[in-house]
C-alpha cells in the first residue's frame, strides 16, 4: 500500500496538455503577427504629434465665452435623454413581457427576443446615423436613437427579471380566477418593480451620456455643439464643452447611484 500523498495540485482547466500549450502558443503567434502586419506609418505619427500639440495648445485655456450656446445644447441633451428614457422604458415593459419565456407562448417569445436582439445589435452611433438620414439632423433623431438603445437594454434586463419571478405568486392569482392583466398587475409587477425603477434611473443616466455621443453624428444636443466647435477649430470652446460633459456625467452618476441605493 502506498503512503498517503502529501502533495496536491489543482487539475488544469484544460486537461489535454497539447491543447493547453497549443492554445497559448497560438494566441502569442497571432498577436505578434497581427501587430507586425498592422500598417504603422511612423512619419504620419510624428506629424500627428505636432497636430495634437496644436490642438491642445489651442484648447488651453478653455473658453466659456459662448456659454449660452453651451447651455442651450446641454438643455437639449437633457431633454433628449428624458424623452428617450420615458419612451424607451414604456416600450420596454410590453416587449420584456413578450420576451419572458415563463409568461409568453413560443411565437410571442421569439418575436420579443427578436426585437431586443435587433435593438441591441447596433451601437447607438450607427442607429443615430440611420435616424439622421431618415428624419434629418436634430434632436428628434437623437430621441429615436436613444429609444432604440433603451429598449435594447431595459427590455432585456427586465425580461430576465421576469423569468426569475416566484411562480407561486402567479399561481395563486390564477387560482383565485384572476384574468391575465390582473395576474400581471398583482402577481408579476410587484415582484419586478424595484428592478424596473432601478433600470429606469440607470437608463436615464446612460442616455445622458449617449446623447452627447450621438449628437456628434448630427442627432442634436451637446454632441452637435461639440462637433460644430471641432469643425470650426474652436478647440478652446470644445474643451469647455468636454469639461461640462464630464462634470454633468459625474453628477448624474452620483445622483442615480444614490437613488438606486435607497430604493427597496
Amino acid at each position, binding site marked *: 500500500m502506498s503512503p498517503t500523498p502529501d502533495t496536491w495540485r489543482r487539475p488544469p482547466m484544460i486537461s489535454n496538455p497539447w491543447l493547453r500549450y497549443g492554445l497559448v502558443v497560438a494566441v502569442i503567434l497571432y498577436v505578434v503577427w497581427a501587430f507586425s502586419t498592422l500598417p504603422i506609418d511612423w512619419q504620419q505619427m510624428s506629424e500627428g504629434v505636432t497636430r495634437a500639440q496644436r490642438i491642445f495648445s489651442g484648447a488651453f485655456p478653455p473658453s466659456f465665452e459662448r456659454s449660452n450656446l453651451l447651455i442651450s445644447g446641454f438643455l437639449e441633451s437633457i431633454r433628449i435623454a428624458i424623452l428617450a428614457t420615458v419612451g424607451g422604458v414604456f416600450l420596454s415593459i410590453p416587449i420584456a413581457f413578450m420576451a419572458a419565456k415563463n409568461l409568453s407562448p413560443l411565437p410571442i417569445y421569439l418575436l420579443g427576443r427578436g426585437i431586443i436582439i435587433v435593438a441591441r445589435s447596433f451601437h447607438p452611433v450607427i442607429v443615430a446615423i440611420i435616424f439622421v438620414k431618415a428624419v434629418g439632423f436634430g434632436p428628434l433623431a437623437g430621441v429615436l436613437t436613444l429609444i432604440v438603445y433603451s429598449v435594447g437594454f431595459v427590455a432585456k434586463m427586465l425580461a430576465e427579471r421576469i423569468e426569475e419571478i416566484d411562480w407561486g405568486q402567479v*399561481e395563486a392569482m390564477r387560482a383565485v380566477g384572476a384574468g391575465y392583466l390582473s395576474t400581471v398587475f398583482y402577481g408579476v409587477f410587484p*415582484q419586478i418593480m*424595484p428592478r424596473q425603477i432601478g433600470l429606469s434611473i440607470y437608463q436615464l443616466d446612460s442616455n445622458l451620456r449617449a446623447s452627447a455621443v450621438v449628437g456628434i453624428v448630427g442627432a442634436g444636443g451637446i454632441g452637435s455643439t461639440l462637433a460644430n466647435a471641432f469643425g470650426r477649430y474652436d478647440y478652446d470652446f470644445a474643451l469647455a464643452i468636454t469639461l461640462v460633459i464630464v462634470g454633468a456625467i459625474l453628477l448624474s452618476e452620483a445622483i442615480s447611484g444614490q437613488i438606486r441605493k435607497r430604493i427597496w
Partner: protein
Amino acid sequence: MLKISKLVKRYGKGDPVLKDLDLEVHSESIVAIIGASGAGKSTLLRCINRLVEPTSGTIELNGIDLTALRGRELRAARRRIGMIFQSFNLVDRLTVMENVQSGRLGYIPLWRAVARRYPKEDIRKAYELMERVGIAHYANKRADALSGGERQRVGVVRALMQNPEILLADEPTASLDPKTSAQIMELLRSLSRELSLPVLINIHNVAEAKAYSDRIVGMRYGRIIFDAEPAALDQRAMDEIYAGIPAEERGEAGDAAALQVQPA
C-alpha cells in the same frame, strides 16, 4: 358537492400520475389526503382548479363539469374554489390588505384592482375575516414582514374572500412549526364548520390528519387505496399507503408532542 370520476393525468408519455381516480366529497367535511411524495396528491388538487390540465375524466363541483370549461368560464369557476398553498404564495411586496383583496380579483374589474379602489363591502368583509383569524392589525404591513403562521392566515383569508364553495389546501402546514401548524389546522376545521365548507387537505403529517379530519383518503401511485374515517386508519393501512417507508419518517413520533400543545 365535489365528484371526481375516472380522472387521469399523464405528464408527457410516462406512466400516469393519476390513474382512473374516483372521489366524492360532500359538504362540510374535512378530507385529509395522505400518501408518500409522488403519490399524486398535489396533482389531484391542482386538477380540481385546473392549474394542472387533467388528461381525461370529469370533475364536477355542485353540478358543473370543471374539465370542460375554458377562458372566462374557467376563471369564473376558479373563483368558487379557494386554494391554500404550502409556501403561502402571498405577493410579498404588497400589503396584507392587498393580498387579501387579491382573492376578489376574479370578481372586480381591472381598474378597481389596479387603482386599489376596492368595493366597500369587500373591504368590510376583509376586516371581518382578518379579525376572525387575528391579523386585522397587520392590514397595512407588507406580507413579507409577517411570520409563517401569520402569512398562512393571510392565505386563508385570501381564499375565503373568494366566497368559495370548497377549499383546497396543499400541504398548508408543511412550512410551519408544530405549534403554529396545529393552530392553522384548528382554524381550517372551525372555518369549515362555520361556513359549511368542504375542505380537501393534502398533508404529510399523519398525526395531524387523524386529529383534524373527518375522513382520510390514502393515495399510492395515483390511486386511492384507503378511504375511511380517521379511526379506521390502522397500522396495516398505513403500511400499505407508505409501503417501504418506516413509521418514524412519517412524523408520527415527533408530532405527538405538537398535538399536546393544543389538544384537538
